[in-house]
């Protein structure tokens, strides 16, 4: 398998962030998922970096000493990186987290208490209702004010509009890139996975440069590979799941999770007469793709639409052990897809699950649908 976008060199990321920090830029960690607008941090002149490192069973075990065995391995792993003073995370000036899920809330509390990193807390509503939208707008306004105090700056409406435009442009570029995968070209799911993690760690500007430098070619080795949609829990940086799938006779054409297409499948539509905070709240709540919301009504229609658009032959529902939103939704998801004659492999695992074991299960699924 040829990779266009290499695995991320974390030392390079550290050096790049250190350089930026030395120019006076602040680095704001974001407990990842889908309800915190990076645009706000970017507009404040800071660098948003998502706490996306994971996949390491040893660090997950360290996190268990702070949380519990039944907390999702991603949240535990996140704590493990802080405990081990991991270089990139040691650059963080403050971080944003909230009640997105139990892992987010409890890990955020531990990070601030035991590693003394200021926590900018955001409360997310559970439902998508007019009153929850008003609430979220106010939470974003409060977050904006907290960032202004922390960064000793003022976030002007024009800064926010510029950030929204920049991220919108990025969304379009990423989706265009993803659309190219409908054909057997050289771009693989692993490439997109690496690209997304570069975005999470270095911000949009670096990613534009990479996209511009990509040369797409027809790729014979991509012909005949089974197009797969990967849904469910996000794939952390360091988690080899997508590579494992693509080492077999498949391509992850759509990564339908918060580390994938969630980030770019819809751009923000707005009129300049609207307040930018309102625009962000409208987008992040009303277009929210996460399974955490009650009820979660967008996931199945979205996946069915993507299956059609990308000519998908099979779906892998990735459930990171103890990831509540996807565990709760597993039956509805599987039944809905099976009713539409879509083969589904439910893959519940943690970072201790051996790659060979994963290969065996995925291989059997691919054989079945080939």
């Amino acid at each position, binding site marked *: 398998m040829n990779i266009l976008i290499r695995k991320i060199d974390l030392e390079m990321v550290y050096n790049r962030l250190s350089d930026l920090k030395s120019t006076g830029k602040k680095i704001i960690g974001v407990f990842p998922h889908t309800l915190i607008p990076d645009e706000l941090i970017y507009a404040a002149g800071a660098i948003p970096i998502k706490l996306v490192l994971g996949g390491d069973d040893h660090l997950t075990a360290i996190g268990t000493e702070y949380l*519990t065995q039944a907390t999702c391995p991603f949240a535990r792993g996140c704590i493990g990186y802080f405990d081990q003073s991991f270089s990139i995370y040691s650059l963080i000036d403050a971080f944003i987290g909230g009640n997105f899920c139990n892992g987010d809330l409890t890990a955020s509390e531990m990070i601030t208490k035991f590693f003394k990193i200021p926590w900018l807390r955001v409360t997310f509503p559970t*439902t998508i209702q007019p009153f929850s939208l008003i609430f979220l707008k106010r939470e974003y306004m409060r977050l904006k004010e907290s960032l202004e105090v922390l960064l000793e700056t003022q976030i002007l409406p024009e800064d926010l509009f510029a950030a929204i435009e920049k991220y919108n442009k990025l969304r379009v570029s990423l989706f265009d890139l993803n659309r190219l995968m409908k054909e057997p070209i050289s771009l693989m799911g692993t490439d997109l996975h690496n690209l997304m993690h570069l975005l999470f760690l270095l911000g949009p500007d670096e990613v534009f440069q990479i996209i511009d430098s990509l040369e797409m070619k027809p790729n014979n080795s991509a012909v005949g590979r089974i197009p797969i949609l990967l849904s469910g829990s996000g794939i952390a940086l360091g988690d080899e799941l997508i590579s494992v799938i693509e080492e077999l006779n498949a391509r992850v054409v759509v990564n339908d999770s918060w580390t994938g297409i969630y980030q770019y499948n819809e751009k923000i539509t707005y009129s300049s007469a609207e307040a930018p905070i309102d625009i962000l709240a409208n987008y992040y709540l009303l277009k929210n793709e996460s399974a955490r919301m*009650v009820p979660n009504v967008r996931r199945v229609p979205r996946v069915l639409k993507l299956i059609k658009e990308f000519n998908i032959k099979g779906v892998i529902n990735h459930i990171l052990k103890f990831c*509540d939103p996807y565990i709760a939704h597993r039956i509805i998801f599987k039944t809905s897809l099976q009713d539409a004659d879509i083969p589904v492999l439910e893959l519940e695992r943690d970072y201790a699950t051996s790659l060979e074991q994963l290969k065996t299960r995925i291989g059997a699924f691919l054989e079945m649908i080939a």
Partner: protein
Amino acid sequence: MVDDLFIGTFLKLNVKFFSGQDQLKLARRMHKKVISMALPPGIELVLAADAVPIFLCRVGDYSSQSFLRTARLYQNFVGWDLLARGVRFLRPLLGDRFFSDMIDQFLTTLYNTYEKYVAIAESEGTPLDACFGTRLLLGATWPNLKDIQGTLGYGTRCNWFSKVFEEVEQKSPLVFIEIPNSNSDYAEEMMVDSLNQAIAKLEQITGSTITNEKLRKKAMITNEIRESYLKILEIWSKDKIRLHPLTFTNLLSLLHIGYTDFLCDPKFFSQTLHQLATDLQHLKNGGFNTGLMPKLILVNAFGGYEPHLPEIMDNLGGRLLIADWEVLRILDKIDVNNGNMLQNYVHYLMGFESTWFDNTALVNRYIAIASKYKVDGILFNSLYGCKSITPSLKLFKTKLQEMNFALVDIGFQNVGDNIEQLKTRIGAILEIIREQKG
């Protein structure tokens, strides 16, 4: 221990506790709508909608309990007090053994019901990794769907708990109250809207209108319940108590569960708790001296706990306090004097969420209540599958280093697991406390 059963009020509560199926039948006969409750908050709304709240986890088939059948029958004819006197009269004829066996049978049947519900949840696809409380709740819901017209659900800080109601909504109408995990002023505004939406849904299900006055009247009754409940907790903490220590803990377990639906009859519950609080203040033959017994507070009970814990504690010479509802401010009074009951109710519900705004807040609150009742330590229920409160263990340990509190953590996943290990761990902490007490 047997004597305790003869206190009429305690007997009444026990009989009511095991009457869930009859209460559902009665509601059906009276054409009342039944709303399933998972937690106590929101019960006043259900009552104000003229509906019957029910905690399905206590609804089971207890028809094999001949004493229960007889007691219910006689109670219908002669009333509670005469029934209690009758039982007292029969005691010399039947012997103490009959009554102790009966208590054991009650508890065994209850635990069997729990196990049956948990097995149903698992067979219906609820993951084994879910906490005991939500498995029990879902397992109790599915076989009883025909008897309920709706379920009260909550959007709180625990995302798993919120998602559980999404699953329930597939099969039963859901009245969902979103309680924001925030102490901001605009969080209150959101709650007002959320409550209004919940009220509209309840009204739609029940066909009854929830007025300000109806809500006030219900809150007045439930406030009386809160007052008596707090008195009973206060009495628990005394060095001399009327009830045998194990019976008292069993009573706290019963109240903990019973408070979720006021055993379906708030007036009865209010009067009985009031009477019970009065009865318990009168020591009989000097009462039981518990001054030297180590006392532990259970953290937490509402996610589910090993039901044999009270017995284990008693056998090891300790006492167990179950006070979740006070910790979570669910025993705080609702303001009934101010005109706007909806606003008052919002304050009440926000108070509940504020206690577990995050785990630091929860730890502080548990320790405050532990200090109030002068307990010697924390029995930390490391509830498997709980991603919300179980992760507070490290915070507890860190906090307690600065204080004179002991802590032991015990695992719990299913009824009856690791009983021997529990005994060893609890025995060890009680020994340490005894040494400290000299």
